[in-house]
């Protein structure tokens, strides 16, 4: 974290206008993402990138908690699914006996509110624990959520969940069209990414990192450590909630399987593969995960292996990355840049 912190402090000093301070790489990446629909086909836009941005956002909410707050929460996928359920219940779906059919400007804010409230309660329980116990308690809540939604037919419609959950026809656009959905998910992924980056240097985010490194000292500086951690859960839930609504619209359905134990753990895998130290990591992890999940089957079959072994590939990839680079792909990248900046013979830093 130290590397980025010094760089950001340095930017605070420079007098240049903010637009001039954006690195070239950001312009290139931004332009490439905006131009993508010009040369990518509908499948790539909708399935690969749409899904990547959504999973990236859910993993980003975990990165915010784990990277800045030191709290590894397995709850994020369940929160996303909860937001999806709430949109289906408050809004419209094919299950007309349960869905209230309220307009989107009521159902979406209400869905996010319920998600944030639920996360606040769960966070309040979880922040009293540390390390492995936080993982255990959030996993327990996630499992309870899975089994509860599967068995409850009055509110959650049990095993089959809700289908026909569609985005509103806002501005006369079909938001499930590949191009529209691509831009919709890109927009919210960008907003989430920038929000996390911004907040990480605002008093709340700085204090959260302080709480991660040294809770006792933070209390001695006047911070309520528990309240700060709970607030972090609430903020992360907002990101996971938005992603959950998008995820529900993408497949037009939400069911207990959306937040089964597999998907719940996958979010952790995505965040760790990408790297938990910076907000871009989860999106890198999500892209790798989505590519593997989409194409590994074909690759395996063409090699004469059983297609269902794609989970094995993801597992091996996870092992290799955790073994070689505990900081994920981002960690590998940082080390490569660090080595490039050193003289190969003496190991001294090169003048830049």
């Amino acid at each position: 974290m130290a590397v980025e912190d010094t760089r950001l402090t340095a930017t605070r000093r420079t007098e240049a206008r903010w637009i001039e301070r954006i690195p070239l790489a950001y312009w290139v990446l931004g332009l490439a993402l905006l131009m993508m629909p010009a040369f990518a086909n509908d499948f790539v836009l909708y399935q690969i990138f749409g899904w990547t941005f959504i999973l990236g956002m859910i993993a980003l909410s975990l990165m915010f908690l784990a990277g800045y707050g030191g709290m590894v929460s397995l709850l994020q996928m369940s929160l996303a699914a909860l937001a999806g359920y709430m949109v289906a219940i408050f809004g419209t779906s094919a299950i007309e006996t349960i869905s209230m059919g309220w307009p989107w400007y009521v159902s979406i804010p209400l869905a996010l509110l319920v998600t944030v409230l639920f996360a606040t309660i769960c966070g309040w329980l979880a922040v009293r624990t540390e390390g492995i116990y936080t993982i255990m308690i959030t996993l327990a809540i996630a499992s309870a959520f899975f089994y509860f939604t599967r068995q409850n037919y009055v509110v959650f419609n049990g095993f089959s969940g809700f289908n026909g959950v569609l985005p509103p026809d806002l501005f006369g656009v079909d938001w499930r069209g590949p191009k529209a959905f691509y831009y919709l998910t890109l927009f919210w992924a960008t907003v989430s990414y920038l929000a996390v980056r911004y907040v990480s240097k605002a008093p709340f985010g700085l204090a959260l990192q302080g709480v991660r490194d040294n809770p006792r000292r933070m209390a001695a500086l006047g911070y309520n450590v528990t309240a700060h951690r709970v607030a972090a859960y609430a903020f992360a839930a907002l990101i996971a909630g938005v992603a959950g609504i998008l995820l529900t619209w993408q497949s037009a359905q939400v069911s207990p399987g959306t937040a089964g134990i597999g998907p719940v753990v996958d979010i952790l895998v995505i965040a760790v593969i990408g790297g938990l130290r910076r907000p871009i990591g989860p999106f890198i992890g999500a892209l790798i995960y989505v590519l593997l999940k989409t194409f590994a089957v074909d690759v395996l079959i063409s090699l004469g292996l059983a297609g269902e072994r794609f989970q094995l590939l993801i597992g091996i990839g996870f092992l290799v990355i955790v073994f070689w680079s505990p900081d994920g792909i981002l960690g590998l990248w940082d080390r490569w840049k660090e080595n490039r900046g050193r003289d190969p013979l003496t190991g001294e830093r090169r003048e830049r």
Partner: protein
Amino acid sequence: MNAPTTSAIAERMSATGTANALELRNVSKFFGALAAMEDISLSVRPGERRAVLGSNGAGKTTLFNCVTGDFLPTSGTIRFFGEDVSAFPAHERIRRGLRRTYQISLLFSGLTVIDNIYLACVGVSRERFSFLRARRDDALMASAEDLIRLVHLEDATHTPVAELSYGQQRQLEIAMALSGAPRFILFDEPAAGLSPTERRELIDILTGLPGHMGFIIIEHDMDVALRVAESVTMMHNGRIFKEGKPAEIEDDPEVQALYLGGGDDG
């Protein structure tokens, strides 16, 4: 609204300034069967500067931890400017104007000097939960910069704390304790490990604090302790052993035997 009880009125009146800055009544702290601190009663007036001396294991740092709420005492009451804070969590006591430094610097090593002090300033302000970044003319940022000047760390403003020298880290620790509007400060061995020059600077900072800002200083270096303090409390084996003016303590034969002559557990 119910009429305030007489005790509540008394509490509020005493909180307005007639009370002692710090008042400990029969405070004890046990770790299992071990008494780290036993039956301590101590009064410090507002603006008073007190040195706490004693060999290692005398209970000095335990005293500080109980006063700031790093952990709660086993028994006894602690009043801060008349208000009973015995059951308050640490952050509530800090928000009431109590500050402390740590014997082993507890700093945020990944952050820069300015960010460390800024965090300290934010912690005692109302902007703890602010999602907005500090603007260039931010008042808290300005007060953080003032504190940096006070402890002569201007040249290291944007240096990550991990790259600071030991002495600089000690100075940063002091700057963080001076954030906001402290009413009373606990310094835990601020001079430990400092060079003679840095010690002189430290004494200048401590003696230069505004008159209303009282403090307790734990210090092994008698030279530093007796120069900045107007009264001295000697602790030994978790109990208060002697209290008095610096000169009295220095000349006391029992103290000399115990402290300067090298105690059994020193």
